[in-house]
């Protein structure tokens, strides 16, 4: 006899409980108990208030078979997801297809281009973004080192993934941030979603994605990285535009600027330092996620880290990990130098 039998009896629910009673052991514990046989009564006697179980689904199900068990909840979620999977796929698959193409193309371009073309291109980009010889030298040294220890290809793969994902984060994040800055209601409704994306362990949203897409498709890890990394650029765009000096906005109004002129001529330029800080954070977070994404076939340095863990190849894992640190420092310095450049030419009084 289980603990909560009395409750169901008192409520007159006994008949409802027994209507579709299932027999047979429900858990390993039950199975063991029935295998030992007949020990039930002695256990019953030992039960006191001290041992009162919390009225959880499992405890209630013991007394009343009609109550679902906790396992049914997780199974139900899984079934529900699998049921809508096909219809979801019809929509999500074509929409996200370009992401797969972009990732594949970018990976191809960055690995297929000979190193003596690729590295100079990267250095020129660094110069254009940051206008700082120190940063260019740093990039040259770091990439040179990675190439020297034969990690050039995985490093380029990692960078290719980050470029594509960060680009898409900015492409969607900045407009979302702008929309949020214009409507308090939108801000109130989007903020909890952003909080959730940021706190949900990254492994968790890999799971439904694996069900949705085949593991061989690049967009699987692309989406995971974007979902994780888009948050800061949205938040800081919203913040940056909200922080634009009210007096300047008023002046823009007083001189008859349209909303569009105000947005592109005043708000975005003045919010740019904050937006750039968001881009910097977004790149850092995509780098963190790219390692986890190697679990679902993302190429790059993450694969080597994973191999280090799986096969206990200490050296491989450490060198690849160092490579990721170098990439992080490199990307951070390049975006920071861009930020500093904007700050000095647009310093506010």
């Amino acid at each position, binding site marked *: 006899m289980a603990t909560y039998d009395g409750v169901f009896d008192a409520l007159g629910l006994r008949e409802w409980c027994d209507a579709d009673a299932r027999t047979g052991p429900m858990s390993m514990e039950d199975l063991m108990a029935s295998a030992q046989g007949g020990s039930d009564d002695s256990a019953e006697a030992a039960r006191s208030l001290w041992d009162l179980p919390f009225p959880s689904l499992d405890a209630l199900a013991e007394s009343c078979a009609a109550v679902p068990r906790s396992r049914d909840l997780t199974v139900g979620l899984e079934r529900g997801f699998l049921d809508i999977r096909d219809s979801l796929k019809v929509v999500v698959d074509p929409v996200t297809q370009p992401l797969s193409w972009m990732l594949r193309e970018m990976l191809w371009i960055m690995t297929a281009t000979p190193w003596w073309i690729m590295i100079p291109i990267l250095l020129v980009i660094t110069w254009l973004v940051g206008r700082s010889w120190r940063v260019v030298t740093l990039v040259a040294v770091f990439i040179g080192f990675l190439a020297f220890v034969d990690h050039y290809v995985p490093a380029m793969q990692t960078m290719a993934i980050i470029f594509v994902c960060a680009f898409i984060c900015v492409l969607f994040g900045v407009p979302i941030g702008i929309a949020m800055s214009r409507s308090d209601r939108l801000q109130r409704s989007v903020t909890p979603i952003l909080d959730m994306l940021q706190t949900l362990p990254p492994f968790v949203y890999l799971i439904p994605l694996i069900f949705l897409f085949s593991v061989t498709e690049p967009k699987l890890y692309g989406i995971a990285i974007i979902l994780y990394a888009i948050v800061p650029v949205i938040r800081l765009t919203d913040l940056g535009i909200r922080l634009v000096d009210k*007096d*300047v906005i008023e002046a823009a109004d*007083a001189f*008859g600027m349209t909303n569009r002129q105000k947005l592109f001529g005043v708000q975005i*330029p*003045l919010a740019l330092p904050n937006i750039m800080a968001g881009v910097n954070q977004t790149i850092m977070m995509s780098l963190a996620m790219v390692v986890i994404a190697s679990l679902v076939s993302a190429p790059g340095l993450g694969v080597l880290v994973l191999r280090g863990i799986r096969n206990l190849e200490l050296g491989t894992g450490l060198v690849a990990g160092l490579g990721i640190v170098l990439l992080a420092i490199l990307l951070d310095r390049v975006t920071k130098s861009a930020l500093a450049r904007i700050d000095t030419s647009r310093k506010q009084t």
Partner: protein
Amino acid sequence: MTENPTIKVSIRDLYKIFGSDPRGALAKVRAGMGKAELQETTGHVLGLRDINVDIAEGRITVIMGLSGSGKSTLIRHLNRLIEPTAGEIFVAGENILTWNETRLRRLRREAMSMVFQKFALLPHRTVLENAGTPLATRGTRRRDWESEAHKWLNRVGLGGNAEQYPHELSGGMQQRVGIARALTSNAGIMLMDEAFSALDPLIRSDMQDLLIELQGELQKTIVFITHDLDEALKLADHLVILKDGAVVQQGDPQHILLKPADPYIEDFVADINRARVVRVRSVMQAGPVDGATVGDVAPNDNLESVIARAGGAMDPRFRVVHDDKVIGFLEMAMVMRALVPSQSRTEAA
């Protein structure tokens, strides 16, 4: 100055109440509820109450009041940066409150310009680009507005700073850019919201002189907001004194100074250096001169200069001469009387 200038802007029965239900509160205010009582019973803030002001074309109208008197709220009604709760605002005979967004934008772009207390320059644009903002906003091409912006920068004495950024300039220079920007728009009406309040006294005095000089050339219709009575008396052709959102007295500043309408204004004008502000025309005896005089003075001379002419002696009499015609005479006793604040004030003290 002509005797009857045309009225450019006219404010009629203007009310502004801040709060959740301004219409309901308006009825209470019209029924005679005061500012403090309204705030206590309904939580609404009475911004402006029953304002009627005529702003003459080509003159400087100064709106003066202490902080919280509603002066900045009032000036923002003239270009509808703030919408009134009730009332009418006529610009060149048309009620601008009935205008749609497009017409309103045209008004802000072409008919009214504004100078701000905190300068409100665009920090990411050069001085030249800031000065050209009103024309660029209208869609004029850069090479077309550049000469105009240069012209006005030269006029306010910033010809050599065109390529600098606002944060590289001192406060006084920044406000010169603000004035150049307002002039570049070539609007007939200039709204100046505490334009000189953020500047230190010497620079402020310079800027006032600059404004008077420019006004002599350009004859704009200027609405100038200030909390400084000295500044108001220096600039005003027409002075409006606000208290708690209502007009206490308005008219010729000389008249207000010599005949304050209520104790509030008496308090206000008590600390003024009257000898420097009161002009001969306000105290002279009009009509033919009888008896001997020792010299001629102009009607717009201030009393300080008359006292200096008399060398401190109490007996000289002066002829008041305007355009080679004798229009009255002045005795030193009249001058002395005018230097003493009005009667009720002396009794109270």
